[in-house]
């Protein structure tokens, strides 16, 4: 089949390394993968190019494309399942994919993991972002976890999201996971009360948990989880924490728990600060004192502005400020952001 006339050929593999590399940097990721599939030599050339700064994500949620590319944490390119299917003849040794499974989900998982392995190997990097469906089947989550265990030791960002949540799969995930996770996000949208699940000891740079339905607040992270955690940033949406829960957390921090914590914020009912600070030494600052806390995190910046607030101090001298901020939601019952920040340099 003569697709392109002979005169159109431009033998780029005969070019010196600098222009060849320059040409390949004009390709998008899918074009690079296609180029790598043209021959083993092409694959070798791509592997020898140093591409930095971009990250690979794996989307196993129904509304996400499966292979994702991020530039400085911003999604800029993705492979759809159709992109992968069109190229299926180049993978699996050109074998028959339909022999692998009759189950569509299982097939999708096979496609995605085979391609993820290929893409990660080609660009010589691990998966940075893993997006999991909070209502995945036990069989799938088990397969994903085992596959991840064998492919890498660390994961920068893991997210559970979905319109429904199966607590069993989250239990299973944390039970089986052998790789460390730096940032964990729950973005759950279930419309019924879910069973609390066990996510183990939270040793993270960032923990984010939210339920988009105020009727079913975050109930799967407890005061005990926070007290025993070693997280730098904790952001929890509407949840059941009350003065007593938070009082225990604050006392634990003063005694030296959560040594890396810089931000702890959650959306709760209006708090009675007399109860909240019961038994805690504090200094109430005048509202005229305005202080700004900034923290760079992944692609962005987290910023809180305090007008006054209550200062508390850890036994080792670290200073934190707590305050309850403006309403999160207006309705029959107002919800407020409780914010605690630990100031750098004890100032």
């Amino acid at each position: 089949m003569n697709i392109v006339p002979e005169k159109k050929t431009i033998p780029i593999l005969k070019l010196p390394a600098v222009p060849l590399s320059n040409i390949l940097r004009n390709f998008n990721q899918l074009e690079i993968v296609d180029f790598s599939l043209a021959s083993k030599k092409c694959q070798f050339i791509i592997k020898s190019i140093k591409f930095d700064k971009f990250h690979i994500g794996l989307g196993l949620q129904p509304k996400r494309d499966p292979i994702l590319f991020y530039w400085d944490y911003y999604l800029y390119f993705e492979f759809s399942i159709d992109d992968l299917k069109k190229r299926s003849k180049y993978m699996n040794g050109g074998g028959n994919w339909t022999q692998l499974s009759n189950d569509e989900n299982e097939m999708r998982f096979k496609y995605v993991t085979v391609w993820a392995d290929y893409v990660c190997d080609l660009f010589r990097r691990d998966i940075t972002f893993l997006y999991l469906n909070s209502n995945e089947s036990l069989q799938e989550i088990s397969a994903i976890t085992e596959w991840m265990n064998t492919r890498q030791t660390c994961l920068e960002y893991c997210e559970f999201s979905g319109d429904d949540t199966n607590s069993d799969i989250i239990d299973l995930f944390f039970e089986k996971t052998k790789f460390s996770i730096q940032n964990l996000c729950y973005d759950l949208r279930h419309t019924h009360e879910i069973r609390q699940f066990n996510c183990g000891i939270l040793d993270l740079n960032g923990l984010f948990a939210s339920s988009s339905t105020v009727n079913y607040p975050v109930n799967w992270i407890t005061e005990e989880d926070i007290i025993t955690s070693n997280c730098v940033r904790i952001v929890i949406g509407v949840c059941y924490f009350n003065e007593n829960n938070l009082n225990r957390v604050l006392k634990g921090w003063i005694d030296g728990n959560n040594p890396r914590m810089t931000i702890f914020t959650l959306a709760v009912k209006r708090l009675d600060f007399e109860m909240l600070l019961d038994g805690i030494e504090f200094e109430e600052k005048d509202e005229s004192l305005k202080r700004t806390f900034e923290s760079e995190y992944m692609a962005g910046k987290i910023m809180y502005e305090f007008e006054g607030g209550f200062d508390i101090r850890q036994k080792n001298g670290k200073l934190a400020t707590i305050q309850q901020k403006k309403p999160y939601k207006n309705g029959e019952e107002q919800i407020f952001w409780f914010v605690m920040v630990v100031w750098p340099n004890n100032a």
Partner: protein
Amino acid sequence: MSVEPEVPIVQVEEVRENPVLYKIISSDNHVFTISEHAVKLSKTLWDLITNLGLTAENALDNPIPVENVNGKNMETIVQFCERHKYDEEEPEYTNYIREFVLPEWDRQLLSIDNEELFQLILATNYLDIQKLMDYCCRVIGDMAKDKTPEELRIIYGIPTDAEDDALERSASDSPGPSG
């Protein structure tokens, strides 16, 4: 250094404020004049000019021979450099996202057949002209749009694995320098 031109000199328009011109001789003895601002786009030529100590006074009396670039490519290169000599310095491209748009004038200039484009890239690489290199590579990179691996193999003259293996075998079977 004195080389008599065998073909008419390609004249280049130069602004009054900067009358310094240099002469370049291509591998096939075509002579080109190029302004100082334009020649600076070529790192290789500018390094040569600096190292030879060429000045406004002696530049035209000392043509610079460029043996790796023929007249046809040199003409394109001179046109390009004169066109872009007053361009503002562009921020360095980050490693992956290349958002520059190839201007229409340059697209027209680079609408040449693939053999010429290939030779132009080699010349551009030798003369180290970053912007022209980026533009040529964009034109070649654009050829990959919506192409299958088989089509890319044809467009870019990529041998199949079997052809690569056969080439490797014949290379290892052939007698070495002492054989």
